[in-house]
């Protein structure tokens, strides 16, 4: 699979437990955030997004929480399964309209699910 030796923080979690992945951002004007999942040998896949007028959004087994006060967001995965093993990235589109939504990515967190 794809690997470029990036030293990622790793979250090791027991199958069935909940996972929490954190991301910090610096731009107070950021108004939209996305979580991507990247499995080995694949490109980033969209999981869930959230707008800054919300502080929580739920999907299937995933919840994203946004704390604008401390510029922090998290992705919670309920009942983590082996198929959840991947690298997870938070990303935000540019707030500058002329910049055409180019994404800025966080460094990523590797989730390893132990059977």
């Amino acid at each position: 699979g794809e690997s470029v030796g990036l030293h990622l923080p790793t979250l090791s979690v027991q199958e069935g437990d909940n996972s929490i992945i954190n991301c910090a951002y610096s731009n107070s004007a950021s108004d939209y955030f996305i979580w991507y999942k990247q499995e080995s040998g694949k490109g980033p896949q969209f999981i869930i997004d959230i707008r800054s007028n919300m502080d929580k959004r739920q999907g299937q087994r995933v919840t994203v929480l946004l704390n604008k006060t401390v510029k922090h967001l998290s992705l919670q995965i309920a009942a983590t399964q082996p198929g959840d093993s991947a690298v997870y990235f938070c990303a935000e589109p540019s707030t500058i309209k002329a910049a055409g939504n180019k994404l800025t990515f966080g460094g990523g967190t590797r989730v390893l699910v132990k059977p």
Partner: protein
Amino acid sequence: EAGVTQFPSHSVIEKGQTVTLRCDPISGHDNLYWYRRVMGKEIKFLLHFVKESKQDESGMPNNRFLAERTGGTYSTLKVQPAELEDSGVYFCASSQDRQGEAKNIQYFGAGTRLSVL
């Protein structure tokens, strides 16, 4: 419907050679983006096409990189001449503007792993 496809999946070349990467976006997507992740770094934006026009190429590292999207369909990214520091994974993404939405979801290809020796 096919997703974003990239070719080749892996390319190994020697320093000084030329390599051309190809991206086929999802059919009908006007927006096409190139990103890359080089050793030890996070995924970084390279450039953005809207149809055949370059909207933003602020992330292109230098003039050894040339991206094209003739006809507004597939895109190529050529590196000439390749240097050791160009090694990494090059991702392509596409999206379509949704009416009334300020943001649009980008769908990524599997990437091309480029190794420059």
